[in-house]
């Protein structure tokens, strides 16, 4: 299956009903003041109560089969729900990692006991996960992780340090990637994924504050943490394969396009109220590109729905989409001529400020754009 055989997806009409339900729910949430629209809420918008309300409606863990609390609704239904949540600027960070990657990972590689222990709670919005991948000396080169797992009686002892772990201070579990066999010429071999339930007295979590002072990221120090055999995820030694199988899901979703959409929506509203022709065309340029990016992301969701793991296509989506997220900022900034202000009570200056200050992360998280282009170059046969 190559890059060029990707096909456009027309969403089935029955998903319109789902979309209308989500929209109506969100309109109520926003108008009642229970939630507020903001940019980049899949990183910054942690709201446990909101996640519970989504869980009640069956909008978390949608891809899980019914016996694990889901509705087996598939990748396209999940696409519709997540894009509606992101476009509305809803606070989805609490359940984001669990819904997007930990849950599907458990479903694919977990034991029956693990699935029963976690998936229904994830789907109810009661159990949140963190992803422990990067380390102080390990960023793009994930296979170089130094966190070690040592086999002991009844399980494993993990020692090492994970960084940039979003939400670890509030999550109920973290899936950590660790080296469990000495490094050999095949550097992808000998890695294992572990489910570490939190809190744990031997897991020390410290904030790594963003440049705004916000606390989302953490340093997570594992100090001889005991993980029972029952919390090994998948096969010991198969961690690399398991981690990379999540990439298509992690990199292709609408969150790679829509992090700044709430800002664009506010700018479009201003335009609709008092726009001039020249500014209309500048907003139109962004809107057209967004339309196309959404179709591309949707086409990848179509492949996911069909059971494929379109990692290269996903890399392309993320490279194009995350650069676009910053184009939105510049377009709105130059058009509105508003001074960005985090403390403003008006949405435009505030969203502009939070978008600018979050923007360095767009092209870093989940694989830098340089790495992503490397993935595409490999597919082209030049690497």
């Amino acid at each position: 299956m190559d890059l060029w055989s990707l096909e456009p997806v027309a969403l089935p009409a029955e998903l319109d009903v789902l979309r209308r339900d989500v929209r109506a729910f969100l309109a109520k949430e926003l108008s009642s003041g229970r939630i507020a629209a903001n940019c980049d809420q899949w990183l910054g918008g942690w709201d446990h109560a909101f996640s519970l309300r989504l869980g009640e409606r069956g909008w978390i863990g949608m891809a899980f089969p019914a016996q694990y609390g889901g509705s087996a609704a598939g990748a396209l239904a999940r696409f519709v729900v997540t894009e509606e949540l992101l476009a509305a600027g809803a606070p989805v960070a609490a359940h984001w990692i669990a819904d997007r990657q930990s849950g599907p990972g458990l479903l694919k590689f977990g034991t029956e006991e693990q699935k029963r222990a976690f998936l229904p709670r994830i789907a109810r919005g009661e159990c949140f996960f963190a992803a422990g991948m990067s380390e102080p000396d390990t960023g793009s080169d994930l296979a170089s992780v130094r966190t070690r797992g040592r086999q002991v009686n009844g399980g494993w002892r993990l020692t090492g340090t994970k960084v940039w772990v979003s939400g670890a201070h509030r999550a109920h579990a973290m899936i950590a990637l660790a080296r469990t066999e000495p490094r050999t010429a095949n550097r992808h071999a000998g890695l294992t994924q572990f489910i570490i339930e939190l809190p744990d007295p031997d897991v020390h979590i410290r904030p790594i504050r963003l440049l705004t002072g916000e606390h989302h990221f953490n340093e997570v120090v594992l100090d001889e943490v005991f993980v029972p055999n029952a919390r090994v995820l998948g096969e010991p030694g198969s961690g690399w394969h398991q981690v990379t199988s999540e990439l298509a899901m992690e990199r292709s979703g609408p969150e790679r396009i829509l992090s700044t959409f709430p800002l664009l929506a506010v700018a479009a509203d201003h335009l609709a109220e008092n726009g001039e022709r020249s500014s209309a065309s500048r907003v139109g340029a962004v809107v057209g590109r967004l339309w196309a990016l959404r179709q591309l992301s949707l086409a990848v969701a179509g492949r996911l729905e069909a059971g494929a793991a379109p990692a290269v296509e996903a890399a392309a989506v993320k490279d194009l989409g995350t650069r676009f997220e910053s184009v939105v900022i510049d377009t709105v900034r130059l058009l509105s001529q508003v001074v960005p202000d985090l403390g403003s009570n008006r949405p435009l200056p505030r969203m502009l400020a939070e978008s600018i200050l979050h923007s360095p992360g767009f092209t870093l998280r989940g694989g830098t754009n340089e790495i992503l282009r490397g993935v595409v170059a490999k597919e082209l046969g030049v690497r």
Partner: protein
Amino acid sequence: MSEIIAALVATVREASAKQCDIGAVTACADGGWNAELWTALEQIGVTMLSVPEEHGGAGGDVAAAVAVLEVLGEYSAGVPLAETALLAGWLIAGCGATVPSGPMTAAVASPELRTRQEDTGLSVRGTVARVPWARYAHHVAVLDNGRVILLGRSDFLLEQGTNLAGEPRDDLAINAIVPASRVHEPSADSAISVQAFYGRAALARAALMAGAARRALELAVAYAGEREQFGRPIAKFQAVQQHLAAMAGEVLLSKMAVEAAALALDTQGDADVAVAAAKLVAGQMAGVVASLAHQIHGAIGFTEEHPLRHSTTRLWAWRDESGNEDEWSGVLGQRVVSEGTGGLWSLLTGAR
């Protein structure tokens, strides 16, 4: 893509590969056309793709026509398939008339075109500028005030011109009495309008652009693998790899936009946003892909002898035909305005 369309596209690819060698493409580069390929396409039965069979077309949908156009763009094929099938054929069939055989082209009448009803037919006088492929067309369908006037070769004087790729873009000086049998009114259920015409022309152009860009990328990948500097192929340099990947991303995005827009045109009532976005993105892509393709090729790609020019000159020509980025951005911006407060997301998703 259905198996039938996939097979059709594969046949078109085979014919194009055979008829569009570098000699044939170069022979078209100054106002020529590829008559052999046209004959082959007629035999395959794709020159009237998307025109309903009851009006003399080949049936099929716009998605199928777009898939064929992508291949033709890839091969720099000098044939008026977009004009014949998606424009002239669509106009004529939309009037309930039967499409004539042979290559055709189409245009929207300029405001200064004068018409007057006379006993022998409709008197038509005036000029239409830059009509694609007009010198090779057996008929020119002109959309004038909601009706379709079908001109024959003797109805106008033709002044030859070309675009940046050397494709014919001819000015027509029309002075004719057109009999009623060649003046058609759209059927009650037809979607014919100036706006719809421009949209289809833009979509066809964007499909050709996606194909041309794909070829420019292929040439760049191949060249980067062959050309050695500092003791290794330049493809081994990360800077070059990053350029190639950036090109691939742009091409993939354009291709998906075009195909999704064709799907929208085939299945949805309102495809205006889709079509505008497809041409906008194609225009944005054209500049990036053409400049990176040349950058990777170095000076040799900038010469007359090198085949790259056939793809890049098309990208540069086509991005300004049927509406450039700014024009389609303007259309989209106006849609955003008319959608009103809170309407942007509905506009993007097509769901209210």
